[in-house]
C-alpha cells in the first residue's frame, strides 16, 4: 500500500490536525490500526526531511549544525493541547503547537545537549554514557 507524501506544513496548518490531538486521524486516516502491518507513511517538513514516519514515533534525521550517522528515534504524542517529542534513551524533549515544532525543538535540544556535554565540565550520573551514545550518532 502506498501513500502519497504530504507536506508537513500542509497538515500542520490543518487546524484539526495541529490543534486537536485526536483529530490526527485526519492526517493518518489511511493508516492501519496499531498492531496491524506497518505501512511506511513519511511526512515531510518544508526542508523535505521526514518528520513523522508512523504514529507515536518520530525520527530526527539531522541536527541544526550536525548531520547524523543514523536517525534518532523519539516518541511523539499529543497531550494537554501540545505535541511532545521525547527522544528514546536520551533525556531531552521538544514541544510545540504542531508535531513539526516539537520535532524542531527536539533537534535543537539534542544539539544543545551535545554541545553542553562537550564543554569540558565534569559529568556525573549517566551523562558519560549519554555523551558516548551521541558521539556514535553524530557525524563529525
Amino acid at each position: 500500500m502506498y501513500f502519497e507524501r504530504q507536506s508537513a506544513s500542509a497538515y500542520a496548518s490543518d487546524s484539526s490536525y495541529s490543534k486537536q490531538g485526536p483529530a490526527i486521524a485526519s492526517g493518518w486516516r489511511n493508516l492501519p490500526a496499531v498492531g496491524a502491518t506497518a505501512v511506511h507513511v513519511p511526512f515531510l517538513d518544508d526542508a523535505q526531511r521526514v518528520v513523522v514516519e508512523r504514529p507515536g514515533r518520530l525520527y530526527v534525521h539531522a541536527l541544526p549544525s550536525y548531520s547524523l550517522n543514523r536517525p534518532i528515534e523519539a516518541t511523539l504524542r499529543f497531550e494537554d493541547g501540545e505535541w511532545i517529542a521525547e527522544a528514546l534513551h536520551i533525556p531531552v524533549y521538544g514541544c510545540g503547537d504542531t508535531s513539526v515544532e516539537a520535532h524542531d525543538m527536539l533537534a535543537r535540544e539534542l544539539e544543545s545537549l551535545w554541545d553542553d556535554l562537550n564543554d569540558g565540565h565534569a559529568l556525573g550520573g549517566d551523562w558519560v554514557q549519554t555523551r558516548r551514545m551521541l558521539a556514535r550518532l553524530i557525524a563529525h
Partner: protein
Amino acid sequence: MGREQSDTHELRTRCEKKLNIEFRSGKESNGCFVHAGRRIARVTIPLGRKDLKVGTFGNMAKQLFLTNVQLNELIDCPLGLTEYLDVLRKRGKIL
C-alpha cells in the same frame, strides 16, 4: 499531573533559588544541576510557553529525576535542596 496555576517562569525561579541551577537562554532555557563539581541533571524549560502543560511538566520532572508530585513540591516549597539531594541519592544519581 500538570500545573495550570504555575508557569514556566515560576518553575525557573524555583530551580534557580532552591537548587542553584543556572540557566542560559537560547531558543530554550537550559539549566544544569551541579553537585560536587559534576553535572548531574539538565532541565529544559521552553521559552515563550507560559503555562506548564502536562506533557512538558512531566518531561521536566523526568529530567530532574523527580516525580510529578515531587516537582509540584519543589514549586510549592516542601522540597528543598536537602530533600532533592536525598531523592538523587535514592535514585543512585549521586553518592
